[in-house]
């Protein structure tokens, strides 16, 4: 759908979620094939690093990265970084997804609101969100507010588009069934529009979350003294690539975990879908 193709190129960390949110995990017979290449590459990397072929000041061994994380955890240094990053993403996601849901529902359901609001929002969407950074810092300072707002901006647009297009694409025929049974207004929304919009909503939420993780990195690189993004810059400044790689790995794991949580929730709510991903259940 339109929303996901538009943001998909930006979604390198979390992976594009253009597929159905109910896509099932690979079966036990299938996973080893997908694991072959990563494991082989990691092993090769480890061996080459230990043999000294790869310069340790540029590309330390995977084991070195893991011990760096373990060390950060042992000294307790890791937890505030994790906590700040997770907190910023949670706040930004909550704010962006909340606003996106509300405005998307408004423009999706009411043609008048769509004509009034959508051109403006589509126009704003065309601004690369990172271009807002200097302005947000100027307006909101370099502390938490500007970071959370930046993340919220990133999350907002995919969620807004998901909700709006989801509502517009609700099958007229099902809406008519609702009307035949006397449903109108909120009852029609609750019993027909809401469930029918959920699949598109979850695609929007997952795309939004992916952008949220991307924007937290940007926000923390701009200036922070806590957070995984700070670790990136710290590793660069102090010439410790293992810290940079540790931070990248943690971003990947956190992004994946939060996305899986959303996907799991989606699968729970959307088990009824008649799609390729669920057809073999």
């Amino acid at each position: 759908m339109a929303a996901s193709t538009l943001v998909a190129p930006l979604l390198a960390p979390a992976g594009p979620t253009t597929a159905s949110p109910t896509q099932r995990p690979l079966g036990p017979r299938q996973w080893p094939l997908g694991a072959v290449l990563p494991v082989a590459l990691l092993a090769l990397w480890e061996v080459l690093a230990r043999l000294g072929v790869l310069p340790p000041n540029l590309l330390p061994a995977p084991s070195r990265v893991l011990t760096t994380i373990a060390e950060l955890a042992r000294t307790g240094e890791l937890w505030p970084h994790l906590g700040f990053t997770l907190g910023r993403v949670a706040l930004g996601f909550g704010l962006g997804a909340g606003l996106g849901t509300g405005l998307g529902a408004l423009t999706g359901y009411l043609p008048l609101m769509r004509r009034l609001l959508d051109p403006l929002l589509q126009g704003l969407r065309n601004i690369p969100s990172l271009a807002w950074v200097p302005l947000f810092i100027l307006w909101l300072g370099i502390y938490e507010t500007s970071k959370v707002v930046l993340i919220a901006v990133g999350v907002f647009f995919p969620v807004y588009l998901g909700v709006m297009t989801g509502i517009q694409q609700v099958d007229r025929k099902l809406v008519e069934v609702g009307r035949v049974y006397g449903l109108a207004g909120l009852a029609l929304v609750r019993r027909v529009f809401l469930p029918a919009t959920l699949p598109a909503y979850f695609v929007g939420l997952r795309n939004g979350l992916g952008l949220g993780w991307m924007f937290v990195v940007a926000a923390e690189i701009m200036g922070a003294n806590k957070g995984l993004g700070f670790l990136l810059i710290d590793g660069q400044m102090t010439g410790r690539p293992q810290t940079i790689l540790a931070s990248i790995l943690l971003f990947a794991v956190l992004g994946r975990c939060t996305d899986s949580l959303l996907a799991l929730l989606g699968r729970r709510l959307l088990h009824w879908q008649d799609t390729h991903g669920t057809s073999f259940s």
Partner: protein
Amino acid sequence: MLQLEHIGKQFANGVVALHDISLHLQAGEIVTLVGASGCGKSTLLRLVAGLEPPSTGRVALAGEPLTAPHPAVGVIFQEPRLMPWLTVRANVAFGLAQLPAAEQMARTDAVLARVGLSNFADALPRQLSGGMAQRVAIARALVTRPALLLLDEPFSALDPFTKASMHEHLLDIWADTRPTLLLVTHDVEEALVLSDRVVVLHGHPGRLSQTLTLDLPRPRRRTSPEFQAWKQRVLDALAVEVGA
């Protein structure tokens, strides 16, 4: 029980779909609207369902003007139109939300048994065949016990065997509670198997052409000479219209 008085319908794009249609249905009667595709028969049904307002004329149910969907009017569409997120049972109970849960359950179970789908009560629509899904749609319409049931080519997507058994089903159900049925079809045999009256529409814009009152006893055998003679009469009536 249903009165259509001088109904006309012109869409916003200027297309005139129906012109001056008047039709009265007696309680418990089965009336079929036949006509070539595009003659406005489905539009007429949508007006009676209260899904669209007529441009001129009035629709009245038991003397009361009908301007919005009415609880005593059930609709079975061409497609099952089941809510894909609800189980078969919840789909059937869709129109019963105001009733107490126990009553909903009892009615739903009874109707599901009636259409032979008790074993599928907890299935999701995606797990049903086309014929089963349409039976669920019929059950959903019946469970509210409508006095008037509108059917818009409800069996047109089914294979001939399923279709014939659905006709039996429908007539059985009709014999139980005698609702008034208004059916749209382009299948002449279907019209003859089911109806007391066949109303022929001709198109662009749709007008009433002929009303044929069938004096065939039930159950009707498609192979009987009387049935075949009626079939010829309806086909002739349709042909006049095609030729005109």
